[in-house]
């Protein structure tokens, strides 16, 4: 719930302000945002696995974004499309995380159901 609330607040703030990203930086921001999204998915998974750590989340959120953007910038300097590498890596990880979240969610639900049935039997 906090996640959705935060997203809503951010999106509103972004739409309200009259700021625009210059097209030169748009590439870096898009890569950085992929990294951020990946961090959020990772955090959701960690939350369900009860291994969530705020410090790891925050540092990962910013450092991943920064490294992705910097790598893309260096790649553009030497003529290698590092944005593609970041897209593939973060995209794969996001899909993996999403799959893991789905599996975990079902297993948690099944566990709760059996627990309930056990309680009823008793």
């Amino acid at each position: 719930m906090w996640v959705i609330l935060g997203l809503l607040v951010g999106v509103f703030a972004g739409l309200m302000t009259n700021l625009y990203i210059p097209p030169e930086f748009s590439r870096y921001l898009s890569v950085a945002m992929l990294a951020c999204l990946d961090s959020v998915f990772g955090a959701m998974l960690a939350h369900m696995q009860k291994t969530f750590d705020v410090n790891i989340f925050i540092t990962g959120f910013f450092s991943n974004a920064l490294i992705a953007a910097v790598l893309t910038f260096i790649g553009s300097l030497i003529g290698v499309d590092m944005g593609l590498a970041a897209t593939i890596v973060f995209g794969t990880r996001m899909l993996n995380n999403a799959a893991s979240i789905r599996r975990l969610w079902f297993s948690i639900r099944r566990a709760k159901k059996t627990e309930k049935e056990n309680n009823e039997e008793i």
Partner: protein
Amino acid sequence: MDKQKILKRISVLVICAILGFALSMQLKSVYKNELSTNTTIRTEELRRMLTTEKEKNASLYEQVLQMQETIDTYRTSIEQTGSAYQGMEMELENAKKLAGLTDVYGPGITVTLEDANGANMVGPAEYYVIHDSDVRAVVNELLAAGAEAVSINGERVVATTAIRCVGPTILVNNVRSSVPFVIKAIGDPLALEGAMNMNGGIVSELRYYQNKVTIQRSDRIDMKAYTGALTFNHVTSVKKEES
């Protein structure tokens, strides 16, 4: 609820807000700039187009300057003598140059074509002599490379020049000439020589059949005017009013 948990939730909220902010900003920018994934490719394409357009623009500008010069000469001649005679004279001079009616000189190249007389000639003898078609091909190549005046064994090539075969010799402007054929061309010597030495061009073909071809650049080539008849029996110019 302990302090730790509240801190945790607030940090998650703030980070999600940042993410949402960045997402919406990016979305807006993408819509505004209509970015696509192949932006870099398109940029290069546009840059190339811009360069070609600039070059075209520069050459057109030069043309405009030239035209203005022509207009100026007309104007000054009208002011000085009351008629456009002087300007027209200059234009007539240009037309004569183009038609090959004046003696001219300038930098260019000399191409000499000779029959083969080697020992190991295999096959029909026609392969080893210079034909009118070979001479035509060389002249055509020279003109294509920007030659402004061409002559064959001293005969100036003009608009009505025919190059044809008569037995063992060829006719140029109805004047008989035989090997060696000395073809002179006035133009950019390097460009003309480059056109001659083109891979798979006429010269390499002639050399393949052991015909002797020599190409020589020179800073000054003198060329006589066309001396043939200039009679028009059938052609009549279309006047502006008639068309």
